[in-house]
């Protein structure tokens, strides 16, 4: 008797599950998995209204936490928005599919050629991704406290500013700085060179006030530190809030990062996914997202449409090409090298 009841419950649960699952499939949807707070929510409403396609948006906070969820296929997403090196990792593990650019007229028309060119470093032939946001990494500093010229990463080792320096709390972003100072690539795989870079960061640690992620904005707006390593998008927000600050990109070079839209290999709504990506490249939508985010956009039509004069004339939001020309982009270095970078970083942090 007991078993019969149990079986009944199970069967009803299963049929219920199938029923609702089948229902979902017929619906006109697209599953999007993107960075947290990386879209103006209003643009999603416009998209749904215009196309009738319902957007189901999930958010991630690091590339590394996004990857296993996609790789294990626990949830089927159609569209993702990872960063450069993660796109390369997804390509190399056959987890995303080539895009049909005939379905992406807005992308072809509005995305600047130099961004497609830079994308080739991680997506050769531009088959898989459409750039969405980009930026650089630089030093933001308090003009009232920093008297030396800020044009080199070297200033982060200046003992005059002990306890006044904020660094990024991430393996690649932290090691990039000493690697660039040594004139090496940020995609360095020579363990001897990496050990030297690690040594430099250990030497720097007593001068560092804190290793930070998102809280860097808050701290610098409140003048908690004299300088900090920040992404250009964050710099734009800090500069707006704190007029004492200035942003500089060191002469040794920086990271030119790109986040792009891709479509997963096992996407069930490939057509809708293309429509969504193309919609995001439409100038009027790109402007809304740019205003919302503050990150530089590869969309060349945005600057003309931008109404906020402070943004429009900002060299941080719209840098001249010589700022980013010839800069490096992170590459996926393989699992083993990734772990090696992380172990170097952990050692620095517990030191």
């Amino acid at each position, binding site marked *: 008797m007991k078993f019969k009841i149990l079986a009944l419950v199970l069967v009803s649960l299963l049929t219920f599950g199938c029923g609702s699952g089948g229902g979902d499939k017929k619906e006109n949807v697209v599953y999007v998995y993107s960075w947290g707070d990386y879209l103006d929510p209003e643009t999603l409403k416009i998209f749904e209204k215009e196309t009738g396609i319902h957007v189901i948006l999930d958010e991630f906070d*690091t590339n*590394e936490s996004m990857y296993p969820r996609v790789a294990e296929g626990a949830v089927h997403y159609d569209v993702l928005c990872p960063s450069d090196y993660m796109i390369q990792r997804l390509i190399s593990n056959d987890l995303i599919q080539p895009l049909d650019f005939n379905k992406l007229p807005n992308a072809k028309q509005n995305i600047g050629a130099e961004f497609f060119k830079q994308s080739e470093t991680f997506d050769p032939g531009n088959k898989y991704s459409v750039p969405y946001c980009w930026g650089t990494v630089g030093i933001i500093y308090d003009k009232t406290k920093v008297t030396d010229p800020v044009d080199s990463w070297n200033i982060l080792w200046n003992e005059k500013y002990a306890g006044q320096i904020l660094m990024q709390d991430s393996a690649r972003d932290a090691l990039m700085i000493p690697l660039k100072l040594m004139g090496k690539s940020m995609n360095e795989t020579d363990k001897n060179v990496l050990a030297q870079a690690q040594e430099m960061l250990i030497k720097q640690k007593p001068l*560092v*006030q804190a290793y*930070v992620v998102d809280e860097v904005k808050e701290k610098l707006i409140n003048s908690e530190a004299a300088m900090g390593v920040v992404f250009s998008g964050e710099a734009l927000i800090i500069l707006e809030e704190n007029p004492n600050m200035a942003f500089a990109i060191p002469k040794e070079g920086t990271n030119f990062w790109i986040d792009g839209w891709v479509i997963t290999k096992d996407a069930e709504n490939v057509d809708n996914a293309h429509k969504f990506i193309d919609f995001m490249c439409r100038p009027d939508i790109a402007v809304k997202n740019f205003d919302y985010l503050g990150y530089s956009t590869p969309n060349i039509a945005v600057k003309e449409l931008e109404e906020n004069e402070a943004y429009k004339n900002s060299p941080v939001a719209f840098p001249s090409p010589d700022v980013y020309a010839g800069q490096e982009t992170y590459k996926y270095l393989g699992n083993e090298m990734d772990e090696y970078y992380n172990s170097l970083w*952990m050692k620095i942090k*517990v030191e």
Partner: protein
Amino acid sequence: MFNKGLRNILLTPFLIWAGLFIFIPLIFIVWYGVTDYGGNFSLVNMGLIFKHGYLDALELSVALALISTIICLLLAYPLSLILTERQRDNTTIISLLFILPLWMNSLLSTMAWQTILESNGIINQILRLFSLPTMQMINTPGAIVLGMVYNFLPYMVLPLYISLAKIDHHILEAAQDLGANSWQTFWRVILPLSLPGAVSGITMVFIPALTTFVISALLGGGKLLLIGNIIEQEFTFQYDWHVGCALSVILMIFIVLNMLLTTAFDPLKEEEDF
């Protein structure tokens, strides 16, 4: 109290709960901890504790948790004693003083400490007002200990207060009748009778202090890594469940050790002899 059938029925919901949400997850953690990516048995991940300076992080965690527990005990014991002596009218004050902070999200109160301790924070601004030299307080081990004590003090006070309040007044009077002075009454009567409360207080403070990662992340500025932070990073950033679980298992060993030690000193067991 209940007959056997009724007892089993009443116990079933908890057993199902414990099985699903305590026992099975524990098995997963141990299983992940002792296997590698291919699912083969391996102690490599456990051995990582000896690499990358993780052992230093564990030592720091144990040291800071111990210091916080001792400070909590030293703060809470006299306080609970004073409060029990004026027992009658104090129940509302107790709940206000010690339950109310627990209503506030601990993340928020830790962030509040951040703004108090920062170099441009409230304390330093007051110091500057009087032209006194400012202090570097945030991102130090002291700041983490302060955060731990602030967050976990109620967990020390409550069991201590309850065990002290439970002591029968007649016992104290009997002690005095038999010629014990107040020091002897405290040392020979009150202290042993309050030990069960102290023991559960110590456990309730030491374990969360040992495993915390939020307090050290906010008040340590990412420069001081506790074992909790390393486990958190393994899960959220490096996404290596095997290493994260292996380190969790090692941390659990310390927790079990703490519990064994505290129960060894638990005077409740002796009461069975009476």
